[in-house]
């Protein structure tokens, strides 16, 4: 038994040596520029709607998020977003457009399984956890804030 675990350990060491490492610098550069670029577009939309529609700062922020989600969903539908993601990695996963991508891609994929169990149920396979942990942690924060206040 002990010899077996030792063998496994030695094997995993060998695998580590032979398997290539991710290109950290290249990946991070892509993530930085694409993530930065998406944020900059967000800023541009924010400034534009704030000025043109005479919105308050908070309203403009919310409007920007709506537009960005729409764009992310559309680019996913058109089959463009995954091509950006292949290079950009976190650069296109972390922005809110990536959240839209994580909703549309499974929903589209499972259309053959029907509009209830396919599209609607699968929509949240990836986005569901984000909502669950985001909302739950915000409730915990609210609760602590309420008790301390």
């Amino acid at each position, binding site marked *: 038994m002990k010899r077996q675990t030792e063998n496994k350990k030695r094997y995993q060491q060998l695998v580590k040596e032979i398997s290539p490492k991710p290109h*950290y610098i290249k*990946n*991070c550069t892509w*993530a930085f*520029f*694409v*993530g*930065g*670029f998406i*944020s*900059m577009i*967000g*800023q541009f939309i924010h400034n534009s709607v704030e000025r043109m529609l005479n919105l308050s700062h908070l309203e403009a*922020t*919310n*409007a920007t*998020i*709506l537009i*960005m*989600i*729409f764009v992310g969903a*559309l680019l996913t*539908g058109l*089959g463009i977003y995954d091509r950006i993601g292949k290079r*950009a*990695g*976190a*650069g296109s*996963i*972390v*922005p809110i*457009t*990536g*959240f*839209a991508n*994580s*909703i*549309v*891609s499974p*929903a*589209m994929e499972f*259309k053959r399984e029907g*509009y209830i169990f396919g*599209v609607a149920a699968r*929509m949240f396979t*990836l*986005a569901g956890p*984000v909502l669950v942990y*985001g*909302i739950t*942690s*915000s*409730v915990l*924060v*609210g*609760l*602590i*804030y*309420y008790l301390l*206040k």
Partner: protein
Amino acid sequence: MSYLWAFIVGGLICVIGQLLMDTTKLAPAHVLVIFVTLGVILTALGIYQPLVDLGGAGATIPLPGFGYSLAKGVIKGVNEKGFFGVFTGGIEATAGGITAAVVFGYMMAVLFNPKTK
């Protein structure tokens, strides 16, 4: 100037995400969950607000920004409605985004089909 800061802050948040994925065994879903939760916690601790002030969309467009809105909403909810606000504040502040994600998501899924790679 606001564009430059948005670029830098947004880019750096993504780089942290990339490093998390490349150096650990975390999948994208893990990173997103960590970022949202972190956004909530950092906002509650008053650390995220300065980042939003500096980076604008650079801090609100990446996913921690969603946590930021949730946390800010819940605090506002508690201030206005007391205990009930604990449960309504977060979603109220992010209702637009969540609804947009559901509706646009459904719409695109109905309209388009995935393409083979």
